[in-house]
């Protein structure tokens, strides 16, 4: 079979991960029209240019970057912990079906509670600090990862397990060489689902408690009726989320190169 050079493969993957740029027309048109219609200084609907000015003001005042990094660090750290714990617990549950049956109903009950609802609980228990914020992100992000991992671990093809036994693999080797690689696509899917939830929860905590972060910046701007800053930060958050999602999509595509195409998650 034909093999193009590695750099071209990466490039193709990146290009395929981004949707056709022509589709941005409605958004660009909306912004353009809004800009044109906004001649005065409306407090409720500032023009897109004003958003930019508002953001620059925040940046110059030295408040933007600390907030952005606080949000990003909590998010990434929380996700990392969620991946480690979710994968670990998920594998345990998946590999020992008796555990899965025993803890199933309990997990189902806990899963039905929406992550945002857990935020006040965490605030009550742990107070208003960074540790609480991190805990909430982990709790919110862990579910999709855990559930995807455990269900994939349960579904490892029995023949593959026969092969493991036939080659007399130790339990540790079986986990390392067969089960873990088998569930990697599912873990990635879980992370992909967990990403938006983690972002929402992080922002929610910041808005509710004004702990350092973009959300806190946003609510403080709203309370001071700095509408252009509010809109500007909204766009910033949107771009931030977009960047995160796309970086992850590329990362996922690169990681899944060696898997048969059908295991790659739906992008539409």
């Amino acid at each position, binding site marked *: 079979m034909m093999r193009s050079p590695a750099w071209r493969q990466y490039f193709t993957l990146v290009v395929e991960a981004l949707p056709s740029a*022509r589709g941005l027309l409605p958004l660009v048109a909306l912004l353009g029209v809004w800009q044109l219609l906004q001649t005065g200084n409306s407090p409720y609907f500032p023009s897109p240019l004003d958003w930019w000015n508002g953001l620059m003001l925040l940046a110059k005042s030295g408040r933007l970057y600390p907030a952005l990094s606080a949000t990003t660090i909590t998010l990434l750290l929380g996700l990392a912990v969620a991946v480690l714990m979710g994968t670990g617990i998920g594998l345990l549950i998946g590999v020992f079906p008796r555990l899965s049956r025993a803890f199933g109903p309990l997990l189902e009950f806990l899963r039905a509670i929406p992550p945002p609802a857990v935020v006040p609980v965490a605030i009550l228990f742990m107070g208003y600090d960074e540790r609480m914020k991190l805990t909430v992100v982990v709790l919110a992000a862990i579910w999709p990862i855990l559930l995807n991992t455990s269900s994939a671990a349960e579904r490892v093809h029995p023949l593959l397990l026969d092969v493991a036994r036939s080659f007399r693999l130790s339990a540790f080797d079986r986990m390392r060489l067969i089960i873990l690689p088998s569930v990697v696509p599912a873990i990635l899917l879980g992370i992909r689902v967990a990403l938006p939830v983690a972002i929402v929860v992080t922002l929610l905590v910041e808005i*509710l408690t004004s702990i350092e972060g973009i959300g806190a910046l946003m609510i403080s701007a709203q309370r001071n009726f700095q509408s252009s800053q509010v809109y500007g930060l909204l766009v910033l958050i949107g771009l931030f989320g977009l960047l995160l999602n796309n970086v992850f999509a590329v990362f996922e595509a690169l990681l899944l190169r060696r898997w048969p195409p059908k295991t790659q998650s739906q992008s539409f």
Partner: protein
Amino acid sequence: MDRDRFIAGINWSGTAVFVFVGLAWEAAVRSGLLEYEYLPAPSAIGLGFAELASQGILAPDIAHTLISVAIGWTVAIVLGISLGILLGLSPIARRYSLASIAVLRPMPAVAFAPVGLLLFGFSLKTEMVVTIPPVLWPVLVNTIGGVTGVHQRLYDVGRTFRLSRKDTILRIILPAAMPPIVVGARISLGLALVLAVVAEMVGNPEGLGYGIVREQQALRPDLMFAYIVTVGLIGIVLNAGMLALAQAFLPSFRQLRGG
């Protein structure tokens, strides 16, 4: 023997774990083993329920949240399905809009709250600003997917019977696209509940979301947990209701249970 099979079918270990955790929790709090100032025993949560209900607070809060969910979901469904059909049928429209959807979709709902507060203050409208956009996406995306996924053969059938464009859409494409649309609607419903709660936490001091935050600030964890459990239960009921409804309209489609 059906009775044996029924007994064998019950998840004994699962129920046992569930009950055991509940009892252990209760015992630990009562005996003073678990001394968290803010950890109520399950019995206290139950009493909290009773307190809220007897004071006539719980019912209006549930009603408010459900109304919020209903409005948000309905608007999202109507917008999502109609837009979705349009986009699904027109490749040109898709080419000039899918990227925008891809950009807007990951916007975290809660980030709209300050904007909503700015424009509408504490009101139901703010709740809608937070609820509607994210709830729109699953329906929209699934409708587009459902319409574009209609098998070519079905279009051929329409042409064989010389159906008009309108009839083709109404009698072939729409029914064929129904299953993913229904799945999208179901996901949206669950999402609408979560977002209504979130909106009530930050954007409108009414309903179950506000109840959770209010009791947290009042340092009444028993009532706070009662609210949270209520949210969970409503979520389960809504989901089951949606499933039942979908089952009734599309009895042959078993994929509804997924997702």
